[in-house]
C-alpha cells in the first residue's frame, strides 16, 4: 500500500501579468502514496489550486518534475496529457461542472466516450455502477437541474470514478454545500478511501481537512508544513450527531 502515485520535485509555476511575475508555486516537493487521503490546505492565493490543476494535468508547470504513477508528465504532449487525464485521473470541481440538460447517467458516461476501448454496453454498465456507488441508483435519468447540490456533486464524483482512476482530485468539493450535505459527501469520500482510492482534496476549511489522513498546508507558493491528522473525524459519526430536524443547516450554511 505504499506505492508512490504522485511524486513532485522542484515544481514551479509563474504567471506573467504585464510586467509583473506572480510566483504561484516556488519549488514544491511532495509525495503521495497509494491509499492516502490528503488535504491540500491554505488561504486564497497560497497556490493550492494551482498545485491541484497541475496534478490534474489541466495546467502545465513552469519548471520541475511531476511523476504520475511512474509517468513524467513534462515529457508528454497535449494529446498524451488528455489520455492521461482520461485513464489515470478523476477530477471533481467546486461547481460540479455537469453538462446541463444531460441526464446523470450520460454525465457519468462522458469520460468513457473519449476512451475508444470502452464499448457502448460496457460504458453504460460502468456508469450505472459508479452512480450506485455514490448512492444515486435511483437518479439515472434526472437532469442536473432536477438534482440538489449534494446530488449533483455525487454525479460529479461518480463521473470521476467511472474510469477507475489511480487518484481522485477534488477542488473545494464541499465549498458550495451546507454542513449536513458536506458531511454526507465526506462520508462518501471516506468510504471510497477505505476501499483503497487515493484522494487529494483541496480545501481552505480546517473542519473539512480533519476528515483526511494527512494535511499539507501551503503558504505563498510553498509547503509550510505537513501534519498527520490526529483524532480524525468520522463523517458517519458526525452525521449521526446532527439534529434530526435540520434547522441548523440554515444557520451554518
Amino acid at each position, binding site marked *: 500500500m505504499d506505492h508512490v502515485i504522485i511524486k513532485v520535485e522542484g515544481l514551479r509555476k509563474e504567471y506573467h501579468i504585464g510586467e509583473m511575475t506572480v510566483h504561484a508555486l516556488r519549488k514544491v516537493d511532495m509525495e503521495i502514496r497509494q491509499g492516502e487521503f490528503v488535504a491540500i490546505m491554505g488561504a486564497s492565493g497560497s497556490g493550492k489550486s494551482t498545485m491541484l490543476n497541475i496534478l490534474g494535468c*489541466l495546467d502545465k508547470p513552469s519548471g520541475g518534475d511531476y511523476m504520475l504513477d511512474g509517468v513524467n508528465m513534462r515529457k508528454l504532449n497535449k494529446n498524451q496529457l*488528455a489520455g492521461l487525464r482520461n485513464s489515470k485521473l478523476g*477530477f471533481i470541481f467546486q461547481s460540479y461542472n455537469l453538462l446541463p440538460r444531460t441526464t446523470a447517467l450520460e454525465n457519468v458516461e462522458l469520460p468513457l466516450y*473519449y476512451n475508444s476501448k470502452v464499448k457502448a454496453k460496457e460504458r453504460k454498465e460502468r456508469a450505472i455502477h459508479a452512480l450506485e456507488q455514490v448512492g444515486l441508483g435511483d437518479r439515472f435519468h434526472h437532469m442536473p437541474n432536477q438534482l440538489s447540490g449534494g446530488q449533483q456533486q455525487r454525479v460529479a464524483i461518480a463521473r470521476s470514478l467511472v474510469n477507475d482512476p489511480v487518484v481522485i482530485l477534488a477542488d473545494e468539493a464541499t465549498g458550495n454545500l451546507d454542513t449536513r450535505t458536506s458531511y454526507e459527501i465526506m462520508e462518501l469520500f471516506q468510504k471510497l478511501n477505505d476501499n483503497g482510492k487515493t484522494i487529494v482534496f483541496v480545501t481552505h476549511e480546517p473542519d473539512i481537512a480533519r476528515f483526511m489522513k494527512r494535511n499539507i498546508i501551503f503558504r505563498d507558493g510553498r509547503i509550510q508544513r505537513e501534519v498527520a491528522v490526529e483524532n480524525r473525524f468520522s463523517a458517519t459519526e458526525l452525521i449521526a450527531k446532527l439534529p434530526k430536524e435540520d434547522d441548523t443547516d440554515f444557520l451554518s450554511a
Partner: protein
Amino acid sequence: MNYTNLTKIAINALKRNKFRAFLTMLGIIIGVGSVIGMLSIGEGSKKSIQQEISSMGSNMIFVMPGSQRRGGVQMGRSDAKSLTLSDISQLKKEAMYLSAISPQVSASGQAIKGNKNWPTTMYGVDASYLDIRKYELEDGRIFTEREIKSLGKVCLIGKTVTENLFGENVDPIGQTVRFNGIPFKIIGTLKEKGQNQMGMDQDDMLIAPYTSVQRRILAITHIQTIYASAVSEEKSDAAIDEIIAILRKNHKLEADAESDFEVRSQSEMIQTFSSISNMLTTLLGAIAGISLLVGGIGIMNIMYVSVTERTKEIGLRMSVGGRGNDILVQFLIEAVLLSLSGGLIGILFGLLISYIATTLLNFPLVIMVQAIVISFLVCSVIGIFFGWYPARKAAGLNPIDALRHE
C-alpha cells in the same frame, strides 16, 4: 479517434440545444429557400412571357410598311402604302422558308345587330391567317377562294363580339351583322383566346376576306401588314432575309436605298421581352443574394457565439480526457449536421415557395438546379467554417483556461 462516439456526442449536444440548433438552421433555411424561390419566380415569369408570345402565332413573321419621306416630310407609318398584293403573290411564288402567307388590312368600326351594337375591329385576311396567328375555328367554316375573289360579304366572329351582339348561348352562325353599314353573314366562330400579355382582348374581332375589307370598307388597293409563318423556328432568320430580298426586288429599290418596309419576327419579340424579364431575374437574384448574405452572417454569428459560449463545456470535456482533436471533430460534426439538414430543409422550403408563387401567379414552375446547388454550397461552407474556426481556437486552449472561461 473514435468517430462513432464523437458523432454520438455531437448528436447529443444538438439534442440538448434544440432551439439553438433550430435558430442556426433557420439562417440556412431562409438563405437557401429564398434564393431558390426568387430565382424560380424570375425564371417562371420569363418562361410565361415566352409561352404567351409563342401563343401569338407559329414562327410568325410580320411585315409593316416603313415610314417614308415625301418631299422631305417624314410620313407616319399608317399613311404608307408601300405593301401591295403584288408583294404577296411574289412572296408566295419565290419564298422557300415560308409555310404560309397572308395579307392583313384592318378597319375599326361599329358592329350592329338589331338593337345592339359594339365597337370592334374587322381584319381582312387570307384563309391561312388563322394558322399563322394560331386562331382556331370553333364552329362553321373559313371563307373560300371564291368568296375572297368575289369580295364575299362573309365573316368569322370572335367570342367578345358574339357575346355583346347576341348574348350568351346563342349560335350566331348564319346570322347577319352590319359593320360600317355593310351586312356580313357570319359563317364561323373563333375559339376563345383570352387576353395577350399586354392586356388586349384577342377575341374582340371580326375576320373577313381581305378583298372585302379593302374594297368595300376601306376603299384602298394597298395592304397594311403581311403575316407569314416560317417553316421552322431555326429558319426564322433565313426567312426574314428572304422576305427582305424579295420585297426589295419587287419594290425595285437600289442597293443603297433604305427599305420602305420593316420585318419583325416573333423570336425578336421574345428576345425583347426576355431581356426585360432577365432584368427581373437579375433583380430577384440580387435580392436573393442579399438574403443569402444575411443568412450567412446569421449562421456565422450563431455558430461563433454558440461555440464561444460553450468554452466551459469544452474545458470540461478536455478535463475528462477529450483531446483537442476530439473537440474539434465534435463541433465540426455538429456544424455539418446543422448545415446539411438546414440546407435540405431550405431546398424543400424553396421548392415550396416556388410552387406556391408560380401557382398563384400562373407561371410555369421552373426549378433552377444551379440556384439549389450554389445556395446550398454557400450556406454549408459558411456554416461549417464558422463552426470549425472558433472550435479550433477553443480546442487549442489549456483545459484550465477553457474551464475558467465565463
